[in-house]
């Protein structure tokens, strides 16, 4: 395979597409599928066949606003239809070439206009199971460019120049990480992709793997070339069967095209990828636990150093990045580091995909430039809080993150800014809460999650999360005291500073941030025995009459 051959494939895909007068793209992401996108696609194909019109019905990855699904976009007009049922298929096909179907049209201009799509550039435009579709949108061009025109150091330099930081949550500079692995000695090195997205309310990585799997593979192959690895693993949680199946297809197709395997594109570079399934443990998203799990051992973290860059999978130098990090690589190599560094804020470059969930009008996937204000994401792109309720807080970073109150909505989203207010960027989950949410109960929910997902290896996390949960349950039940609150804070400090891995270190974040920003809600529960949001079931204190006391 050469660049010319890639261009040839791209051209033939375009010619093939040009044969059709209309393209009907059906979102086949898990959210839309669960609402009947499968049947819808069949109905559309049937209607298209019967109509005699020249229509291409294409299944695509996530288009974004999942709560409006199933979604259908008709090209070239770019008409977006929401809540489409199989019954609407005939109406849609009939409207082709004429006026759009009014009752299905959705106005999400505000939602889309503020977004900048880099990672999701292909989502909703290509069939994730067709490698040629990906190639037609500059797919694998970056890999071939890197292999034939760049040195491994040159690739690392470009990534460093871009300012890309790890999208799994830690925000470690990607170029620096690559450089470290590249410098590590040894013949055998590994490249591993972390697709064990486990935060409640986060589904960015799933959508990327389901909607554009080749992008991840291409990013990994470029990384392997840069650091000198020849073998890669994608660690995906088994709860993502669609992602697994699409990745499997993608790997098979890439091998067939000679884009994976021995001597890629007639160069001495060889690289292949295997999929490993996670067994549903949140802690396996932690890098050392993930590597232990790939090795077939119990998924528990170990102390670092040595870091995986020096001694990782099977004791070999290992590059471990998150799905979204790899998804950013191909465009950076194609367009240059400066192009990427021009987007975003001072120390957080590029764009970030967020999964907007909770009490928000447009639930779904959004990609925004770093530095954008939280207010813009929630009120404009997300469409605000529905049902006349008022916004109370947004939780970023999943169970490891903190709750950010309404006063701080003008905060620009970046790794450092979120850290400064006691939350984290995390992988990109964003859960919006309104006045019907009790913040003590929210803290309890996340602590319970960490308690259940703690591996049990180190004491602060194992017993500490269980104790936090007990104390929070007491407070939620109206049985807490001010001493309990002090105890909780002291416990949080110890867990944060002494836990072995990130799970424990960040588990107190939801508690500490809600105590900091919603202290009055704790006081209400403890002193006045009432839950302001009416969520916690606090029994009214039993009135003891004076007679009984006497």
């Amino acid at each position, binding site marked *: 395979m050469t660049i010319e051959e890639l261009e040839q494939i791209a051209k033939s895909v375009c010619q093939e597409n040009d044969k059709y007068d209309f393209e009907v793209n059906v979102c086949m992401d898990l959210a839309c599928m669960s609402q009947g996108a499968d049947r819808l696609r069949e109905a559309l194909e049937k209607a298209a066949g019967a109509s005699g019109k020249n229509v291409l019905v294409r299944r695509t990855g996530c288009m974004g606003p999942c709560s409006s699904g199933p979604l259908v976009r008709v090209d070239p007009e770019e008409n977006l239809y929401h809540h489409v049922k199989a019954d609407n298929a005939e109406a849609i096909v009939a409207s082709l070439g004429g006026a759009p179907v009014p009752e299905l049209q959705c106005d999400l201009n505000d939602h889309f206009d503020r977004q900048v799509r880099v990672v999701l550039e292909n989502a909703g435009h290509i069939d994730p199971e067709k490698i040629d579709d990906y190639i037609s949108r500059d797919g694998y061009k970056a890999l071939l460019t890197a292999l034939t025109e760049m040195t491994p150091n040159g690739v690392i330099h470009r990534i460093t120049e871009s300012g890309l930081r790890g999208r799994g949550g830690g925000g470690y500079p990607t170029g620096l990480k690559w450089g470290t692995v590249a410098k590590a000695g040894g013949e055998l090195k590994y490249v591993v992709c972390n697709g064990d997205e486990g935060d409640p309310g986060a589904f960015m990585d799933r959508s990327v793997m389901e909607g554009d799997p080749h992008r991840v593979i291409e990013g990994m192959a470029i990384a392997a070339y840069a650091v000198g690895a020849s073998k890669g693993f994608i660690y995906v949680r088994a709860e993502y069967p669609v992602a697994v199946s699409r990745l499997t297809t993608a790997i098979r197709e890439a091998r067939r095209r000679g884009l994976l395997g021995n001597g890629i594109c007639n160069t001495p570079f060889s690289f292949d990828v295997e999929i490993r399934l996670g067994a549903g443990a949140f802690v396996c998203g932690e890098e050392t636990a993930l590597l232990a799990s790939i090795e077939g051992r119990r998924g528990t973290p170990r102390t670092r150093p040595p870091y995986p860059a020096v001694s990782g999978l099977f004791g070999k130098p290992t590059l471990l990045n998150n799905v979204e990090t790899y998804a950013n690589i191909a465009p950076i190599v194609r367009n240059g580091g400066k192009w990427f560094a021009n987007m975003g804020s001072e120390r957080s470059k590029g764009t970030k995909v967020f999964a907007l969930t909770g009490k928000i009008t447009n639930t779904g996937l959004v990609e925004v430039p770093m530095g954008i204000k939280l207010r813009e994401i929630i009120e404009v792109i997300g469409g605000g809080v529905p049902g006349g309720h008022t916004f109370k807080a947004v939780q970023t970073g999943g169970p490891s993150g903190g709750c950010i109150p309404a006063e701080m909505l003008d905060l620009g989203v970046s790794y450092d800014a979120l850290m400064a207010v006691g939350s984290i960027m995390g992988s990109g989950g964003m859960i919006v809460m309104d006045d019907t949410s009790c913040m003590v109960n929210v803290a309890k929910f996340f602590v319970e999650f960490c308690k259940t997902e703690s*591996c049990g290896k180190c*004491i602060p996390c194992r*017993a500490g*999360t269980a104790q936090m949960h007990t104390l929070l349950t007491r407070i939620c039940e109206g049985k807490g005291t001010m001493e309990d609150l002090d105890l909780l804070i002291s416990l949080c400090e*110890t867990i944060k500073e002494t836990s072995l891995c990130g799970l424990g270190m960040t588990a107190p974040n939801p508690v500490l941030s809600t105590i900091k920003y919603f202290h009055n809600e704790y006081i209400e529960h403890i002193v006045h025995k009432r839950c302001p949001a009416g969520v916690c079931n606090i029994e009214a204190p039993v009135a003891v009459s004076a007679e009984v006391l006497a």
Partner: protein
Amino acid sequence: MSESMGVKTLIIDGQELSARAGQTILEVARENEINIPTLCHMEGLSNVGACRLCLVEIKGSNKLLPACVANIHEGMEVVTNSERLKKHRRVILELLFAERNHICAVCVSNGHCELQALAQELGLTHINLPYRNPALTVDASHERFTADHNRCILCSRCVRVCAEIEGAHIWDVMGRGIDSIVITDLHEDWGSSACTRCGKCVQCCPTGALFDKSKIGSDHPKYPDFLPYLNLMREAQ
């Protein structure tokens, strides 16, 4: 040059010390009689850095490092006994005491228990955290030993000694988080497991979780012969 000799100099608790390159902070501290509390560490076994009691402060870093696995480096300044560390150690011990049923007065290891000794050393006189009082089992199916999960602190010394030294790997950890327990084989009774009966795990266990049945008996010899004698004497009256 000291560098090329593989000798490093460092400061622990204000003392200037020299050490071999590749040594851990804990090794150097113990060689120089500086006490750093540990529970999961045991000389002769691999280190897992799980109990977090040996965390120390390193000057210039806000992060606490486990002394049992952290290697020394030239010019390092280590603090092993700050107020911050003492507070964390007390909370960790409290967490351990409240996690399961550690009732020293009725424990077979009373008086020779590492957990108890550490609590005494750190002056832990009472527990602020709520006791969890879990309902845990006692496995007395083995002819020589007993596993009392009520006393287990999940230090994993038994797991490591069985796998690394005995080579049998009978012990392992099952379950997650607060529900973790050590098990033999694939969660079979210890008595019917492939245990080699070497007893290394019992010797390594820091608490009364694993103990030798014969040793318990020898502390409490019983003489039931008194009964026929007593009856005989009464009848004679």
